[in-house]
């Protein structure tokens, strides 16, 4: 069949368009990095004191007498909330992934997967609202503490937000383990528990690790929910009932009001660079680990 000139032209443009879409993702990532860096750069290579930034908890960006940009308490806030979230989310997430991929009857499996995907689609501000109202009063009642907006609250909310990611990626990793492994193990007389602990988990460990790391990335980058649930208080927490403030919440709360290109504005962008670096490293690590699985096969 002969193709008309029109359809040839058409195809040319469609090809061009799809190519542009593909390249655009690369351009966007670099552009984002470039612009964040540009906003913070002149201060970063000027008056910025990295030692104070990383070692002092004193965050006084609007002080009249002595402006200090110490981000240690903010870093500690982010780390404490993320760590707690992972302590809760990893066992739950991996457990759910094992259940869905190994034990679940087919019909339940479909329903569960849809529900978990739904959980991932809940907007973070809704999570924050749950933290602010329901979790806050629950924590006050159950643990008899004065304030329910604290590390525990933020950690629980973040755990619930990262569980769906861990489950869906973890389940894929378990599914990728060839059935022959399971059959061989069963033929050897292994119990189901033995199959999971000794065969499946070691075989899928790269994929599961990648799932966990992506969950960590989600937890570190989360802003709105932690802004509402953690109490927004600058301090290095000594228990899970202390309110804290995270890096992301600081940017969200303060960036809107700073004058453009002021020192404060640029320091917030330096925090942005720090967050970008952290998530970039985590995603890169996850990527390499996933690649590790493929090469092995």
């Amino acid at each position: 069949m002969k193709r008309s000139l029109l359809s040839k032209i058409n195809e040319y443009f469609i090809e061009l368009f799809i190519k542009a879409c593909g390249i655009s993702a690369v351009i966007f990532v670099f552009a984002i990095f470039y612009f964040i860096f540009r906003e913070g750069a002149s201060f970063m290579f000027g008056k910025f004191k990295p030692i104070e930034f990383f070692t002092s908890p004193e965050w006084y960006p609007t002080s009249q007498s002595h402006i200090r940009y110490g981000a240690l308490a903010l870093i500690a806030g982010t780390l404490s909330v993320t760590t707690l979230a992972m302590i809760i989310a990893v066992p739950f997430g991996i457990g759910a992934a094992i259940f869905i991929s190994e034990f679940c009857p087919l019909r339940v499996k479909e329903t569960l997967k849809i529900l978990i995907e739904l959980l991932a689609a809940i907007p973070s501000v809704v999570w924050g609202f749950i933290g602010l109202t329901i979790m806050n009063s629950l924590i006050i009642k159950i643990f008899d503490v004065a304030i329910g907006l604290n590390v525990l609250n933020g950690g629980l909310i973040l755990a619930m937000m990262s569980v769906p990611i861990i489950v869906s990626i973890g389940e894929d990793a378990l599914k990728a383990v060839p059935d022959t492994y399971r059959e061989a193990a069963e033929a050897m007389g292994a119990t189901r528990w033995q199959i999971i602990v000794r065969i499946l988990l070691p075989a899928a460990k790269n994929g599961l690790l990648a799932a966990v790391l992506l969950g960590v990335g989600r937890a570190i980058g989360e802003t709105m929910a932690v802004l509402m649930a953690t109490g927004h208080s600058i301090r290095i927490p000594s228990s899970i009932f202390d309110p804290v403030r995270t890096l992301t919440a600081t940017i969200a709360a303060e960036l809107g009001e700073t004058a453009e290109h002021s020192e404060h504005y640029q320091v917030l962008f330096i925090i942005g660079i720090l967050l970008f670096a952290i998530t970039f490293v985590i995603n890169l690590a996850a990527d390499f680990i996933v690649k590790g699985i493929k090469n092995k096969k």
Partner: protein
Amino acid sequence: MVRIYTRKLYSVSIFLLAIIFLITAGCLHKVNVDESGNKAAEVIQCAGSDTIVNVAQAWAEKYKEVERNVSVEVSGGGSGIGIAGLINGTLDIANSSRKITAEEFEKVVKEREHEPIEHIVGYDALAVFVHKDNPLEEISLEELAEIYGEKGTIDRWSQLGVEMPPGRDKIIVTSRQSNSGTYFYFREVVVGKKRDFRLGTIDLHGSKEVAELVGRTINAIGYTGMGYVTPEIKMLRISKRKGEKAITASIETVLNGTYPVARPLLIYTCGQPPQHVQKFIDWIYMSEAQNLLRQSGFVPLKTEIAEAK
């Protein structure tokens, strides 16, 4: 086959183009239409202090009845946001619960080529409050400075002579986020101009949140504008020094200047505003608007209005 495929693609792309066209057309032709369907001739953009936002919204509602073809759009965000909007030229009026700083003043002059003009539209008294079951009745500015200030010496209720249930002796200090006008004003008057807040205060994002948290927490202390006080919390009488007479926050004590933590509510315009904006500002000074101010828990400019009704 190929032809059918191409034709389908055509119709899809034409459809997409049509949608894009409609959207752009919609954007270009955005008009402000009021309820009656007539074009609202003028819009006054007005934003800033969260303290003022409620009363400003009440003014905007009422002003619709006064001037049918002027619509006032109000939003909050903090005094800093209002003044930033003045600098960027996106606002006609900036609401502020603090004075414009010299730096901000210079920026407005530089960016807009007009000096900002200040109008005092009322007064706000900051209430310092505790949970309603807290036995404390009064407090001095000195004690507040030690509770709120950096390296302050008071962090337990027992130091103020208040007995709390076991495990609740620690004072939970609530404050506002660092761009809030209320935060700036409290720091200036209570903590001290050259001193900073202590680390570890719980910085909430709005006056209402502060009142709510203190209302739920027996060992907390907080401050907001007088208009936000709820039945769950108790305002404290405030004295300048320990031993001096403590003053209750009320319209009278603010107007006669005895209450130590009161401040003017300000609105800023950029130079002489256009006529429709000036008309709105003139209206704010009239008794109708001043009454709305009083109903929102603020202190109007004149005692006659305070006493009327």
